[in-house]
């Protein structure tokens, strides 16, 4: 096939959007949104990497901090939420062998994520609203630095994404418990109890002969438990957004509410509790669940120590509600008891729960060897390595003594945050994309294995390299969330920038590979209404 033909129709013309079910189309729409916003985040990241080496003439300082504010939010909400929502809205019904509760709600889910992300990104781009994702009070309401109108649109954009997330939460839980038309009545309460771990917990207190079977599979249990954290953090972020909006509306109407009753430390505790339900909650739980699912799909076998894996997910959920104080170890007014118990001790449990998930996944793979080194397997191994590197880095900084000299340095955002997100989380998501690709496209063929290999190695080396060089700068005192205009840390920043360039190249290789696999017509076709009117997840093959 000619280049033009492949570009338009995809590799060997195998992908035909008309053959897709509504569920396949919705899932692919999520993937496209996630990919586009991942591209945004990578380009923004590269602009900041270059700016850290030498300020760019077309970006002023206000713009830089607006990018710094939008970058993690676009990456997490615009990209990761889109991937996760799309994948899990497909996988929950796929694993439970029943249709999704509401396709309409799923459609609104991706639309709200796409629109909401674009609105807050654009508001930041135009108005330079830049209180960062941390929103430390009263910075988001400091209208001597920021535009109140820009801020209002920014917060509305975030709120729309959260409403999209709420739709996801409703859809996941309803799908678990509901009875599809024409089916026998499903035990909704028992299914829910199994999904969130209540029945498993009761089993621990019963004799073996009286223990009940798990009604949902391990990956569905992981998705449900991560979704509990998603529900809680959506509530916190929505509430905080409303609070900030009250101040903004006040400012628009001419009232300055800045000095009123909000306590900055209480707010910081509240907001970090919510934010940590993402970073130390749903991300870790979803990732562990995805590892188990991938290991099961790759090996065709059950997960090693399945019951313990299930219990560890429940422990992780409870741990995620009690670890937020590790973000406040440098806040001197924070009670010492909270610093030690929540900030240090409970946080250390994440080493255990994530370590267990790591071991269980590796053991599952080991027992099924020899395995073929497929794309999904190599990206899964990359994801495991990412968390093996990033979690210990996080445990080190969650120490009262070390935090005193690490907090807000590049160490935090390099070896911990970026290695966790780029290597641990993103490579796990890529593994899921590679494994779901033939299922979602009805057997389309990947355009180039060479490009897939480039994607893997460039992303892995670039991600680890960037984290490492940022970390080295952090250990030499380089702060995050600021600028060094005299090139104080240029050696590290140049090396981190080169590593970042590898990540960008990896993304371009992947993006090109996917577009050439399904073709431009295929990409456009994903967004047209489905021709198959069915609730089935994939087309039924007639004998």
């Amino acid at each position, binding site marked *: 096939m000619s280049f033009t033909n492949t570009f338009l129709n995809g590799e060997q013309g195998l992908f035909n959007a008309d053959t897709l079910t509504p569920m396949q189309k919705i899932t692919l729409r999520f993937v496209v949104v996630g990919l586009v916003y991942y591209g945004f985040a990578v380009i923004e990241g590269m602009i900041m990497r270059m700016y850290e080496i030498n300020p760019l003439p077309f970006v002023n300082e206000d713009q830089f901090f607006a990018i710094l504010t939008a970058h993690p939010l676009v990456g997490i909400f615009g990209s990761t939420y889109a991937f996760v929502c799309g994948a899990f809205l497909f996988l929950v019904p796929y694993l439970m062998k029943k249709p999704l509760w509401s396709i309409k709600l799923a459609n609104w889910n991706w639309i709200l994520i796409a629109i909401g992300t674009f609105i807050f990104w654009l508001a930041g781009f135009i108005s330079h609203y830049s209180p960062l994702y941390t929103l430390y009070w009263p910075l988001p309401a400091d209208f001597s630095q920021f535009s109140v109108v820009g801020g209002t649109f920014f917060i509305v954009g975030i709120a729309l994404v959260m409403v999209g997330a709420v739709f996801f939460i409703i859809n996941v839980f309803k799908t678990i418990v509901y009875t599809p038309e024409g089916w026998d009545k499903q035990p909704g309460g028992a299914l829910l109890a199994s999904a969130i771990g209540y029945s498993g917990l009761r089993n621990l207190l019963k004799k073996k002969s009286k223990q009940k079977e798990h009604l949902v599979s391990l990956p569905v249990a992981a998705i449900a438990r991560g979704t509990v954290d998603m529900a809680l953090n959506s509530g916190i972020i929505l509430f905080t957004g409303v609070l900030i909006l009250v101040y903004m509306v006040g400012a628009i109407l001419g009232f300055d509410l800045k000095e009123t009753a909000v306590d900055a430390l209480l707010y910081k505790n509240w907001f970090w509790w919510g934010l940590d339900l993402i970073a130390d909650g749903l991300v870790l739980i979803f990732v562990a669940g995805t590892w188990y699912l991938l290991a099961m799909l790759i090996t065709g076998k059950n997960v090693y120590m399945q019951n313990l894996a299930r219990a560890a997910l429940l422990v992780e959920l409870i741990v995620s509600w009690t670890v937020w104080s590790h973000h406040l170890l440098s*806040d001197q007014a924070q009670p010492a008891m909270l610093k030690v118990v929540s900030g240090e001790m409970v946080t250390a449990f994440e080493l255990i729960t994530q370590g267990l998930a790591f071991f269980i996944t590796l053991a599952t793979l080991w027992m099924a060897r020899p395995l073929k080194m497929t794309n999904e397997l190599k990206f899964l191994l990359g994801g495991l390595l990412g968390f093996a590197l990033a979690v210990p880095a996080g445990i080190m900084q969650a120490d009262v003594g070390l935090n005193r000299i690490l907090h807000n340095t590049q160490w935090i955002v390099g070896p911990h945050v970026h290695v966790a997100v780029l290597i641990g989380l993103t490579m796990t998501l890529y593994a899921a994309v590679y494994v779901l690709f033939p299922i979602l496209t009805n057997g389309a063929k990947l355009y180039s294995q060479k490009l897939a290999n480039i994607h893997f190695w460039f992303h892995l080396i670039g991600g680890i390299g960037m984290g490492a060089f940022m970390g080295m700068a952090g250990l030499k005192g380089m702060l995050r969330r600021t600028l060094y205009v005299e090139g104080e840390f240029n050696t590290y920043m140049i090396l981190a920038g080169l590593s970042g360039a590898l990540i960008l190249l990896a993304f371009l290789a992947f993006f090109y590979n996917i577009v050439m696999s399904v073709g431009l017509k295929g990409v456009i076709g994903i967004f047209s209404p489905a021709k198959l009117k069915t609730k089935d997840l994939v087309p039924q093959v007639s004998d």
Partner: protein
Amino acid sequence: MVDSNMVLNGQTIAYTLYCLAIILVMGWFSLRITKGGKSKKVNTTLFYSFVVFLVILGVSLHIITYNTIPWTAMDLNRGDYIPDRTFNITVENHKFKLPEEELIINCHELVLFDVTSNDLTYGFGLFRPDNTMLFQMQVVPGHRNDILWFFDKPETYTIRSTEYSGPRGIYMIEEDVVKVVGCDGALTQ
């Protein structure tokens, strides 16, 4: 006395060795799972040993740092100490308002920095001339932000805000304003 540079050097060595080890293990694992092998079982003893190892590692890190990093215990119990000197510093409109007298510290003095913000959340950190950090803390409005530090080396430090407080905050730098004098070979006033 152990200082931040020494702690961070130790951390660099430990974490680098760990990273190299885990990368090698994962590389070895990736090669091995593509090949068949005699034993395909994973012993549960190995699994439970790993769990115990993680528990010991997670807890021992904090016990070790509590007993080896000198500022940890002092920080958690700083109400029990009587400082030799106290500096009251105010922050407002992205500016540090330092005491009128110079911030001169005699060697081996225990010093309390009491920093108050009148508007936003800021940070407060001391940095050496080579930009490495001595310590930092958050400065939250409406709350007491105090840090106790023992100085035993001759040095001149720059104060810098270590928390983002909007684009204006990046210029919150007071160069060479804290001086430690009186140590052997020390700086003179």
